[in-house]
C-alpha cells in the first residue's frame, strides 16, 4: 500500500451567516491521493470543489473558516502549521495552477519576474542561475522563444500562453502535487485540448500528483485516473474514472452524465420542411467595430479589414441555425448586427417580406423591433434588478400589444407558465431567482413579443449542465408551439448539434462551412471545422481527441490545421474564398480547385456523390491544399 500524499479527513468548512448561524460549504469531506496520481474533482457551481482543492494548501477564501477535520499534505497538517511553514510549502511542494491565468498573473510584473519570485522564495539559486532556470521552465512548458517571453508582461501573451506561463510558475519549486482549478475553462476548445494534452504529458514525465477541479466531465474523462463527484459540499461518489463514467452509482452522477449533450448524438429535431417561408436573410454582410478616426481620414489611411465580412446566410420559419466558432470568430457580432446593436457596413440583412434590418435598433419601427428578440448570455445582467419579474414581462406586452393592468398581468403569468415558473414569481425580484430561473425569465421576456426571429447569445454557457438541459428543452418546445426561428450562438458544438437544423462555422469573421447539422457533423469538410470537432472532449474515458499529437504542438500552438486555414485566409486577403456547393445546402468556403474538392470527396471523405462546386470568381487564384 502506497503512502498517501494528500489526506483530507472529515473536513468541514463554512462561514458564519448573519445571526451567527454556522453555514457549511463543505461537509465532512474525506479524500486521499497518492504520489503520481491524478484525481478529478467534478461538480456544478457551488458544490465546493474549488474549496476542497484550496484547502489542500491550507488556504480558505476570505470569509470562510474551518469547522472541523484536517487537511494533511506530505505529513503536514496544513491548517495547524505556522504561517511561515505553510508559506514554505505553498508554491514549492504543492502548487496551484489557477482558473484564469490572465487574472492570476500580476499585470505590472513581467512573466520572468514572477517566476523568479517563486524561485527566490523556494530555492537557493543565485541571480544568474535563476535567470537560466526561468528560461528552462518556460522552455519546459513549450513556450516559443522562452527568453523573449520572460521579458513580456502578462497582457502581451495569448490566453493559452498565459496558462502555460502559470504552469511554469507552479513548476518553479519542484512540486510533488499540482492543484489545477478549472485550468482550461474560458479557453477556446482547441487551446483547451492542447493545454490538456500538455498537462497529461507533464504529469507522466515528472510523476507529480495532480488534483484537477472542473465542471466539465469531458475534461475529467481525459485527464483523471480517479474522480470524485461533489454535490452541495459533499462527495456523493468516488472511484476510478472509467467506472464512474461508465457505471455511475449515485443518482446525481447518473443525472449529471445524462444531461451532457453529446457531440456524436444525432439530433432529434423534426425533419426540415423545404417549403417553409424564409424569415431571415443575410447577404454578403460586413461589420466593423473600427470607425476611422479624424486622423485616419486626414492621413487617408486604408480602412482596416472588417471584423466580419462576406457572410451570407438564410433561415426559414421554425428552424434554428447555430453559429459556432472560437473567440474572435464574429459569431456574436453577427447576432448583434441582426439585433441592430451594431451597424452593418455592407451587405443586406432582411426579415420576411423584405423588411430591411440595416437600421440600428434606435431607428427601427415598433413592429420590426417586435419581430426580432434577443436572449442574452448573462441573464443576471440583462434583467433590471430593481424591477419585479412581473414588471419585466409586462414591459414588452405594453410596448408591442398595448396590454395594461389585469390583462397584462394575466398574459405575464401565462408566459411564466410557458417557461415552467409559478405565477408567484411575478412579484419577485431577479436577485431572488437562481441562475437557471433568471435565464427562463429572459426567454419568457423574448417570447412576450411573439417574435419571428429569436437571437440566442451563448444563453446556456453560464448555466450548469443539468440546468442547461432544461433550458434547451424549453427552447425547442416553445419553437414547436409558436414557430419562431432561432439564431443560436454557442461555442459548444454538442449543444449546437442538439438544438439546430443548420450550422454555420465561422473563423475570424468569415464563414468556413454552412450546412444542415447532420451533414456538417457527419462529414466536416473545411479543415477548420474538422479541427474544431476534433478538439471537443467527450465524457468518455476512451475517447481520444482526434487531431492532437505532440507534432502539432511543436508546429504551433494552434496546430497545423488551424495554420492551414490561416494561410488560406491570408492568401486571399480581402477577397472571398472560393465557394463549393456540396449539395443539400452544404456549402464550403475554401480556396481549392473544384477538381480537388471532387477528388477529396471521392477519396471517401464525403460519400455523397456529385460535385457541383462553383468558383465565386474566375479572377480568384486557386490554391492547392498543403495536404
Amino acid at each position: 500500500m502506497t503512502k498517501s500524499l494528500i489526506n483530507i479527513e472529515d473536513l468541514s468548512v463554512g462561514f458564519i451567516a448573519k445571526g451567527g448561524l454556522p453555514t457549511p460549504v463543505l461537509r465532512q469531506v474525506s479524500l486521499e491521493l497518492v504520489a503520481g496520481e491524478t484525481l478529478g474533482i467534478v461538480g456544478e457551481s457551488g458544490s465546493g470543489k474549488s474549496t476542497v482543492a484550496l484547502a489542500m494548501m491550507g488556504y480558505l477564501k476570505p470569509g470562510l473558516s474551518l469547522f472541523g477535520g484536517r487537511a494533511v499534505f506530505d505529513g503536514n497538517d496544513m491548517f495547524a502549521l505556522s504561517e511561515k511553514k505553510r508559506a514554505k510549502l505553498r508554491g514549492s511542494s504543492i502548487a496551484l495552477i489557477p482558473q484564469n491565468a490572465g487574472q492570476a498573473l500580476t499585470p505590472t510584473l513581467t512573466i520572468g519576474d514572477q517566476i523568479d519570485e517563486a524561485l527566490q522564495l523556494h530555492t537557493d539559486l543565485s541571480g544568474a542561475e535563476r535567470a537560466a532556470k526561468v528560461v528552462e521552465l518556460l522552455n519546459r512548458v513549450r513556450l516559443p522563444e522562452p527568453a523573449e517571453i520572460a521579458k513580456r508582461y502578462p497582457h502581451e501573451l495569448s490566453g493559452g500562453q498565459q496558462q502555460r506561463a502559470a504552469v511554469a510558475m507552479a513548476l518553479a519549486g519542484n512540486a510533488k502535487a499540482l492543484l489545477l482549478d478549472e485550468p482550461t475553462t474560458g479557453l477556446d476548445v482547441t487551446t483547451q485540448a492542447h493545454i490538456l494534452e500538455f498537462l497529461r504529458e507533464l504529469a507522466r514525465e515528472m510523476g507529480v500528483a495532480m488534483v484537477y477541479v472542473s465542471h466539465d466531465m469531458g475534461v475529467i474523462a481525459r485527464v483523471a485516473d480517479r474522480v470524485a463527484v461533489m454535490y452541495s459540499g459533499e462527495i456523493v461518489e468516488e472511484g476510478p474514472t472509467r467506472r464512474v463514467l461508465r457505471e455511475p452509482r449515485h443518482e446525481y452522477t447518473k443525472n449529471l452524465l445524462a444531461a451532457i449533450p453529446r457531440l456524436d448524438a444525432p439530433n432529434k429535431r423534426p425533419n426540415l420542411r423545404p417549403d417553409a417561408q424564409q424569415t431571415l436573410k443575410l447577404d454578403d454582410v460586413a461589420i466593423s467595430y473600427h470607425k476611422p478616426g479624424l486622423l485616419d481620414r486626414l492621413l487617408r489611411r486604408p480602412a482596416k479589414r472588417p471584423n466580419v465580412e462576406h457572410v451570407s446566410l438564410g433561415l426559414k420559419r421554425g428552424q434554428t441555425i447555430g453559429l459556432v466558432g472560437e473567440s474572435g470568430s464574429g459569431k456574436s457580432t453577427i447576432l448583434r448586427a441582426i439585433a441592430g446593436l451594431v451597424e452593418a457596413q455592407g451587405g443586406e440583412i432582411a426579415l420576411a417580406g423584405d423588411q430591411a434590418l440595416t437600421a440600428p435598433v434606435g431607428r427601427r419601427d415598433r413592429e420590426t423591433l417586435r419581430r426580432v428578440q434577443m436572449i442574452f448570455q448573462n441573464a443576471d445582467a440583462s434583467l433590471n434588478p430593481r424591477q419585479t419579474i412581473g414588471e419585466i414581462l409586462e414591459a414588452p406586452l405594453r410596448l408591442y400589444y398595448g396590454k395594461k393592468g389585469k390583462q397584462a398581468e394575466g398574459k405575464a403569468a401565462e408566459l411564466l407558465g410557458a417557461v415552467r415558473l409559478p405565477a408567484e414569481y411575478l412579484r419577485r425580484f431577479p436577485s431572488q431567482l437562481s441562475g437557471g430561473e433568471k435565464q427562463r425569465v429572459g426567454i419568457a421576456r423574448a417570447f412576450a413579443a411573439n417574435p419571428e426571429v429569436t437571437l440566442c447569445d451563448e444563453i446556456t454557457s453560464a448555466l450548469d449542465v443539468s440546468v442547461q438541459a432544461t433550458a434547451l428543452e424549453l427552447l425547442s418546445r416553445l419553437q414547436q408551439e409558436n414557430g419562431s426561428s432561432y439564431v443560436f450562438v454557442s461555442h459548444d458544438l454538442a449543444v449546437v448539434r442538439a438544438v439546430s437544423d443548420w450550422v454555420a462555422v465561422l473563423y475570424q469573421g468569415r464563414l468556413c462551412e454552412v450546412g444542415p447539422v447532420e451533414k456538417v457533423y457527419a462529414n466536416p469538410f473545411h479543415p477548420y471545422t474538422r479541427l474544431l470537432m476534433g478538439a471537443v472532449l467527450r465524457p468518455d474515458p476512451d475517447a481520444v481527441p482526434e487531431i492532437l499529437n505532440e507534432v502539432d504542438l511543436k508546429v504551433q500552438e494552434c496546430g497545423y490545421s488551424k495554420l492551414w486555414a490561416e494561410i488560406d485566409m491570408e492568401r486571399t486577403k480581402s477577397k472571398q474564398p472560393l465557394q463549393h456547393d456540396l449539395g443539400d445546402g452544404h456549402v464550403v468556403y475554401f480556396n481549392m480547385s473544384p477538381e480537388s474538392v471532387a477528388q477529396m470527396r471521392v477519396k471517401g471523405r464525403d460519400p455523397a456523390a456529385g460535385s457541383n462546386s462553383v468558383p465565386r470568381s474566375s479572377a480568384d487564384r486557386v490554391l492547392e491544399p498543403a495536404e
Partner: protein
Amino acid sequence: MPTLILRRFGFAAFTIAFVSLVMFAAVEALPGNVCTSFLQRFAQGPRLERCIEQQGLDRPALVRYGDWVAGAAQGDFGYSLKKRKPVNELIWERFRNTALLGGIAALLAIPLAIFLGIAAGVRRDRPVDLSLSGAAMLAMTIPEFVTATALIYVFAILLQWFPAVTIVSPGASVLQMLPNIVLPVIVLSAVLIAHIMRMVRASVIDVMASDYVQMARLKGVPERQIIRKHVVPNAMIPALNVIALTIAWLLAGVVVVEKVFNYPGLGTLMIQAIYDRDLPMVQAVALIFSVIYVAVNLLADLAALVLDPRLRRKGH
C-alpha cells in the same frame, strides 16, 4: 513608446493652445473692451485714447491674439492697467510664493496620503483603518476657510507660534516667507491627504481581493512582499488620476487659503486684479493656472505609463 510620449505632449500643447483661445475670446466677448471696462465712467477722451494705444487695441483681434500668445510663450504677458507696469514684473515673485506654498503642500501631502491609504487599505476595517478613514471624512467635510480660521485662533492668537496673516512684502526671501507658510500648508494638505488617502485605500482594497494577490499568497510570498511588489504598483494606477485631479483642486484651494492668510501669491493677485478689472493681469494668471493644471495631468499620464505596462502597448 517614444511616439506615445510625444503624443501625450502634443495633446497637452493642444489643450493649452485651446484654453488660451477660449480665454482670449471670452475677454473679447465682453461688452466694450479692456480699456472701457477698466476705466468705466472715465472711459473717454485722451485717457481712453492713451489706454487704447498702450494696449494696442486698434489692431484686429487675431493679430492681438497672436501677439499675446507669442508674448506669453516668452514670459511677457502685456501691461497691467492698474499697476502701470509689465505684468511679468509683478507676476514672477507671486508665482514663486504660490509655488512655494502649493509645492510644499503637495510634496508633503501626496507621499503621506499614499502611505496612509495603503496602511488603511491593508488593514481594512481594523482600528487603524477606521480612525484614518474617520479623520479623512472629517477633513473633507470642513471647508478650508473654517480650518484656516480655527488654526489661526489656536496657533497664531492663543499660542502665538506663527503669524496670523502675512505682513512681509511679496518680494521677501524664501527664509522670511517660511514662517508664513506653515499654517496655509497645513490647511491645504489636510484636504489633499483626505482625498488621496481615500482613493488609495479603495484601490488597495480592490487589488487585495484580486486573483493575482491570492495567487501570490498561494505561491508562498510573504505578506510584506505581496504588498510591495503586487499590491502597491497596481493600486497606484487608478489612484494617479485622482491625485492629478486633487492637485487641480489645490489650485482653487490656494486662492481661498491665500486670501484668508493674506498670503502674497498668485491667488491674492488674481482676486485683486478681478476687483480692479485689470483684464491683462487676470488673463495672465488664468493662463498660468491652466498650464499648471495641464502639466500636472501630463505628469500623471506619464507616471501611469511607467507603472502600467498595458498602457505602453502600441496603438494607444
